[in-house]
């Protein structure tokens, strides 16, 4: 594209100079016009900080339209790890919070960032691994035993390593199994659940996943569900009303409608009706206490 002229080959006239100035001005006007083309949408909406498991499984795509139909409120979901979701809410960048780390959620309320926390639904964590199961966890009698067997065998285990709800639950389970993870068989990825499953599939590693992401996950390669059903693998999701005192500028009234709808009969029904490949992935339990 580069072009060169020697000064003698072409002469600049003063007319050319004027023309250049006019076209530069025209270009600027055009650019200003382009920049105003990004209009904001005007319908009422809230921003919800939530987890990758709820988004990747397709739950929100299934239930948010029902909520929007009955209230006229749209929900903008920012799906991140639970740790980052807490941080977004702490800074006042989301109107509502739906995560799965009950201990962390209760601390969030105690610290004054949220005024109320309620159970919404649950599912469970499952242990995934290569189908030939080198650690032999398929017949383990408990999750703690299974984790112990993986550590003993030295087979690779991929961990989220991102301070998400799943990562926090996994670390509690290593603790319960009396294992200090961190040797070379333990690979901390710092990734979301889906990316971690992709990596585990690539290196034939063990991995703990929430059931929803696993069922909806398409790139399984040699991976299989090897262990499930222990009570300690219970995975509770909670919704939080954020503090009006700390962040008065948030859309609390709209966010409260979302929170209350999740707990309502209609919301609980929508969650229970959601299926992927014929499997129910989330079990509503708002009335549990």
């Amino acid at each position, binding site marked *: *594209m*580069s*072009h*060169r*002229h*020697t*000064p003698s080959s072409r*002469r*600049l006239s*003063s007319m*050319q*100079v004027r*023309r*250049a*100035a006019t*076209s*530069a001005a025209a*270009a*600027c006007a*055009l*650019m*200003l016009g*382009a*920049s105003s*083309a*990004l209009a*904001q*949408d005007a319908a009422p909406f809230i*921003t919800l900080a939530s987890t*990758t498991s709820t*988004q*990747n499984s397709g739950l*929100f*795509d299934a239930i948010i339209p029902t909520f929007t139909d009955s209230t006229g409120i749209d929900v*903008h*979901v*920012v*799906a991140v790890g639970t740790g980052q979701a807490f941080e977004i809410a702490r*800074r*006042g*960048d989301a109107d509502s919070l739906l995560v799965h780390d009950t201990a962390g959620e209760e601390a969030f309320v105690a610290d004054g960032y949220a005024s109320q926390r309620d159970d919404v639904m649950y599912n469970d964590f499952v242990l995934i691994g290569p189908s030939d199961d080198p650690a032999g966890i398929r017949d383990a009698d408990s999750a703690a035993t299974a984790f112990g067997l993986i550590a003993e065998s030295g087979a690779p285990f991929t961990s989220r390593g991102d301070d998400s709800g799943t990562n926090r639950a996994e670390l509690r389970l290593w603790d319960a199994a009396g294992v200090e993870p961190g040797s070379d068989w333990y690979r901390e990825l710092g990734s*979301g*659940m*889906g*990316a971690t*499953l*992709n990596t585990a*599939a690539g290196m034939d590693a063990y991995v703990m996943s929430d059931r929803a992401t696993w069922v*909806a*996950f*398409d*790139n*399984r390669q040699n991976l299989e569900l090897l262990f499930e059903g222990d009570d300690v693998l219970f995975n509770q999701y909670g919704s939080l009303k954020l503090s009006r005192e700390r*962040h008065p*500028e948030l859309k609390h009234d709209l966010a409260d409608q979302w929170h209350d709808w999740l707990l309502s009969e209609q919301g609980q029904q929508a969650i229970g009706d959601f299926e992927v490949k014929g499997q129910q992935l989330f079990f509503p339990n708002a009335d549990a206490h």
Partner: protein
Amino acid sequence: MTDSAFATALDLIVGLDPDLLAIVSLSLRISLTAVAIAAALALPLGAALALYRFPGRAPLIIALNALMGLPPVVAGLSVYLLLSRAGPLGSLGLLFTPTAMVVAQVILVLPILASLTRQKVEELHGEYAEQLASMGISRVRRIPTLLWDARLALITVMLAGFGRASAEVGAVMIVGGNIDGVTRVMTTAIVLETSKGNLPLALGLGIVLLALVGLINALAHLIGESTRRQLG
């Protein structure tokens, strides 16, 4: 799997999938707006850097050159902290909007446009300086003249900026939040589909993105060619 990715890409394009159209149009609007704003600032800045000598000029040029390698995720994080409610511009409520994504991309594109413009204009000025001086044209008036004369090369410069803007994912993911129908663009959609393990769809989207960037480059090439012919 590559076969099914191409089939998926073809299905997406031929079927004019409405979600895909929305994502493509948002990607284009955001990146083109970012390049337009960055160009409005960077072209005069680059030309001024080429023509004026002042203390601190060399460090400024080095800084702009270095910022061409700014990791998108760092740009994204800076804009996030700036626009977050707890940040200095939090009251504007711009986080997780397309505007925030434009801001982040302007920061990524501006150093590329300014650095390359400075280089082009400096070369050109070396050739024309005497002539311009003999015509009694002031330095300020020389800026638009030289930019106009370098316009063919500057189209390539702007394409480089557009390439950077449309290809990056780290910044728009952080400041946009990848919200379905609001801030989801081609690259963040590809990340999402990859994390769902839906690799054919992810690669299909990648092929669509590549085709789109190719189309824009072809258009720019045609514009450049026709201008060149007009000049004779």
